């Protein structure tokens, strides 16, 4: 009995070991992908800061500034861009952002607004695969290799729909990497463009060509593309960070299981030796 027990434990140790090899490998892959994604996320910052600075200057300095993109329309649908990962095995990473987005969908529908979705990442398109809502576009597997053109293409789709009067507001749901150890699902209002009028009434002598409004409106697709690019890269970095953490935990748990099983194995081995000894001794005694 003891021998078969030992064999079973040995087999379990082997299987946990091989699982641990996988989780260890995934942990390493995620750490190196995370490093690259972080660098990419940081490189986008100067561009986006300057773009935002320019737009807020236009909005706050130009006298009588007026743009369709800064006012909330009564009519029109709400577009929610939901950005998630392409793969699972990353702890609560995907679930958190869906929970936030689903809550917002319920809120908007309670207000009587139509909701249109745009999904980024395979997990997001799977999550909304059965929805009856209109899906404007699904973008799978873009996180790792997203180019500015992809982001611009997405932005132009959205701006086009907005310009035709179908949309009232655009929200982006993504995961912000606060630190490699913590990621936070966030909601960001994109259109109407928020908080643009930093110091209204300050007249500037800046020369806008052809006009402040034209400059502002022509920057909108880039602004949207910039936000999409940054949030997609950020989400991708978060996905890698979350996976690295989940895999680290899994490896730790596996190690713990192996330790536990080794102890059991040793006990079983000891037990079988003791039993054999007792059998020999009692046999010898019976003989004597």
């Amino acid at each position: 009995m003891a021998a078969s027990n030992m064999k079973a434990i040995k087999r379990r140790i082997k299987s946990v070991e091989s699982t641990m090899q996988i989780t260890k490998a995934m942990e390493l892959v995620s750490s190196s992908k995370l490093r690259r994604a972080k660098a990419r996320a940081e490189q986008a910052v100067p561009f986006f800061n300057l773009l935002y600075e320019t737009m807020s200057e236009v909005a706050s300095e130009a006298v009588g500034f007026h743009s369709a993109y800064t006012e909330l329309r009564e009519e029109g649908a709400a577009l929610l861009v939901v950005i998630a990962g392409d793969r699972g095995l990353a702890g609560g990473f995907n679930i958190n952002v869906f929970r936030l987005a689903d809550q917002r969908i319920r809120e908007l529908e309670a207000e009587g607004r139509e909701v249109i979705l745009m999904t980024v990442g395979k997990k997001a398109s799977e999550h909304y695969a059965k929805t009856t809502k209109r899906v404007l576009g699904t973008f799978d597997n873009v996180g790792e290799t997203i180019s500015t053109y992809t982001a611009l293409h997405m932005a132009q789709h959205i701006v086009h729909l907005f310009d035709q009067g179908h949309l009232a507001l655009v929200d982006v749901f993504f995961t912000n990497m606060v630190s490699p150890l913590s990621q936070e699902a966030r909601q960001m209002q994109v259109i109407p463009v928020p908080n643009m009028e930093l110091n209204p009434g300050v007249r500037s002598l800046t020369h806008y060509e052809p006009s402040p409004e034209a400059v502002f409106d022509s920057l909108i697709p880039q602004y949207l593309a910039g936000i999409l690019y940054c949030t997609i890269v950020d989400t991708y970095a978060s996905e890698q960070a979350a996976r690295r953490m989940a895999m680290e935990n899994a490896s730790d748990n596996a190690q713990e299981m192996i330790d536990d099983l080794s102890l059991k194995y040793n006990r079983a081995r000891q037990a079988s030796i003791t039993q054999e000894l007792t059998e020999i001794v009692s046999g010898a005694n019976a003989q004597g």
Partner: protein
Amino acid sequence: MSVFSLQIITPEKIFFEGEVQRVIVRTTEGDVGILAKHEKYVAALPSGPVKVILSDGSQRIAALSGGAVKVSPDRTAILANAVEWAEDIDIDWAKRSEEDARRRKENSKDQQELQFAEMKLQRALNRLRVSGMKE
């Protein structure tokens, strides 16, 4: 000749940073040359060439696909979706994307597809034009 600091920034990287004598951009209203001590100025840029005259007087040309130029007293910045030096442009690739854009334009089903194809075509043509401008 006095110089001023110029930055050309894309979402992927800071493409160019340095002192220049002059920069010429193509705005929606026409070509604009910017020298040191230019007034504060902001303009939208469609796809077009950017000519940079460096502090030693040498000239470089780049193809820019959409963006804006912002002149402030301390620096001049060009925001671009994408930008490439003329000598780095892959002409074969630009030609292929031109053909692809033309094909898409013919096969486009609605206004939106047509508009996207047209923009792609403009970008490809711009790159081809700029690559021919190199000295």
